[in-house]
């Protein structure tokens, strides 16, 4: 297993490098620069600005500088927030986004998995249909609509009641400010987890070993908890990989709607401002997170399912 782990890391690193390279050259080879504002800067100042940000160096030099900087954890200066560098902005935003993301993930697992099991054990009854329909609704309604609806209900309509929740802002992570964004971020996960758990649980309950366990007189609860659940959880673990990517894009929307200072919001602001280094930094960070998460998922996989042995890389 350790050799498998090493092999995966060895694949992950060049992947990340390829992403960095593509990002860098895409950014630098396109017409228009960060200083092409509506009001053009005088030529002398432009020369100085370009020198300040090393944009007058040859391209390969800039590329190498950037790579070396990355190795030192330096994502370069932000082109728009003049007094900040990208590393500083990310260091501010990342904890906020991660806190929200993990809270949402946790909430989704706590609600989604039991609901999926609940639906699966009552397959094709009314209980099942209600849960499944709710899950479909959760998948179909995008979270930028859901966010607005939540604001409308809890921020506007219930303004004068005890259920009032702040419609936006972060307030240094005050608890009431977190409820709506986390819930909004968690909803699509809950829906996916319900569907995945339900599907795999139904399959697991039909398996021969579950029938055997029941035939030998094991109580139903034990059969479910000890035998069926184990294999039913494998697809759920697999989902955690893509879930990271989900979480990152979800945070863009949720942080924009609720005005939370996380990396998703910085990314959107950076994209709107053509702040190349900021956009690039967040993209690279996200790619690294996704790669790391996929690796973690593979490891959890091997712990859950004894049939999965990593003698050779999977195709």
């Amino acid at each position, binding site marked *: 297993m350790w050799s498998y782990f090493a092999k995966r890391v060895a694949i*992950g690193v060049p*992947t990340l490098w*390829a*992403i960095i390279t593509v*990002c860098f050259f*895409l*950014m630098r080879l*396109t017409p*228009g620069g960060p200083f092409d504002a509506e009001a053009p800067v005088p030529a002398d100042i432009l020369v100085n600005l370009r020198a300040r940000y090393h944009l007058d160096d040859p391209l390969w030099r800039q590329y190498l500088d950037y790579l070396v900087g990355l190795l030192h954890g330096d994502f370069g200066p932000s082109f728009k927030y003049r007094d900040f560098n990208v590393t500083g902005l990310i260091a501010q935003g990342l904890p906020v986004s991660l806190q929200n993301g993990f809270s949402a993930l946790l909430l989704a697992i706590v609600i989604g998995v039991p609901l999926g099991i609940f639906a699966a054990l009552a397959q094709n009854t009314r209980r099942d249909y209600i849960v499944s329909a709710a899950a*479909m609704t959760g*998948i*179909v*309604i*995008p979270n*930028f*609509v859901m966010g*607005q*609806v939540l*604001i*409308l209900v809890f921020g*506007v309509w219930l303004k004068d009641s005890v259920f009032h929740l702040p419609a936006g802002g972060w307030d240094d992570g005050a608890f009431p400010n977190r409820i709506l964004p986390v819930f909004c971020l968690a909803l699509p996960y809950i829906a996916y987890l319900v569907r995945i758990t339900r599907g795999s649980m139904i399959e697991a309950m039909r398996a021969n070993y579950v029938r055997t366990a029941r035939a030998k007189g094991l109580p139903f609860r034990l059969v479910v908890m000890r035998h069926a659940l184990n294999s039913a959880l494998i697809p759920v673990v697999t989902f955690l990989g893509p879930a990271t*990517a989900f979480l*990152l*894009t979800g945070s*863009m*929307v949720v942080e*924009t*709607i609720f005005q939370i200072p996380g990396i998703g919001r910085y*990314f*959107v602001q950076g*994209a*709107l401002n*053509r702040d190349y280094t900021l*956009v690039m930094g*967040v*993209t690279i960070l*996200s*790619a690294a997170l*996704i*790669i790391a998460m*996929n690796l973690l998922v593979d490891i959890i996989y091997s712990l859950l399912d004894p049939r999965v042995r990593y003698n050779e890389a999977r*195709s």
Partner: protein
Amino acid sequence: MTGVNLSSPHGEALKAAGEVDGRSLWQDAWRRLLANRAAFISLIVLVTLGVVSVVGPYVLPWTYDQIDWDHVEAMPPNFAMGHYFGTDSVGRDLLARTLFGGRISLMVGILATTVALTIGVTVGAVAGFVGGKVDQLLMRFVDLMYAVPLTFFVIILMVLFGRNFILMFLAIGAVEWLTMARIVRGQTLTLRNKEFIDAARASGGSTTAIIIRHIVPNVLGVVMVYVTLTIPQVILLESFLSFLGLGIQEPMTSWGMLINDGAAELEINPRTLIIPAAFMTVTLFCFNFLGDGLRDALDPKDR
């Protein structure tokens, strides 16, 4: 639709189109689809929505970018003036805008999916059929792309090359083909060693000809299911971009942008948010039901 009567004009037409006598897989699937109530209703709703959003803007008294100067503040529905859903905050007819936005959203959905379909089927079929080094190379590339935060890349492309409509669906299509390629490759692998492929090869068909004439038609069933599930994803991605202000530009509009506009009016005019959001949600619902229905209809295991 029971057995086809060959003497009827319909039967003749089918025969002329090269359709096989009796019930083909597709006719079978079609009947099963129609028997699935949710999928059938979804199909009708989608066709209606499509027709209405194409024809609607020509029929309505107001166009999507026309400002009604007598009602520049958001106005509740007024039938006498021809504002059936009222107007938005700058006095444009909300129904006309919703339909026009629907047209753009659906168009992006269909065009981007076509791009994804073309790339995905080509890569998948070639990788699966040719095999060996080519397969290794193409699939490694697909694996690599899976690790890339693709939404970020679409945004980067939109930022770099300006927000134009053509780039938008090309960019979305270029990132949505990965799963399609994997599915098609898997299907191709199971087809590759079938007798009819051997026969085609024995009678001198070139690799290209075999892929186009024999492989592609046989993977279409699975591909169609995936297409109906990709279109809503693309619509969602487009509205996500437009919502963030990185998609379609004014005065053009799409559902995502209307939802964004409506969000600004949330407190005084929830109507401007709820109407486009409802249109989009219903569309996404229908595509998902249709996709599920198609999957059941084309699934040979259930037969």
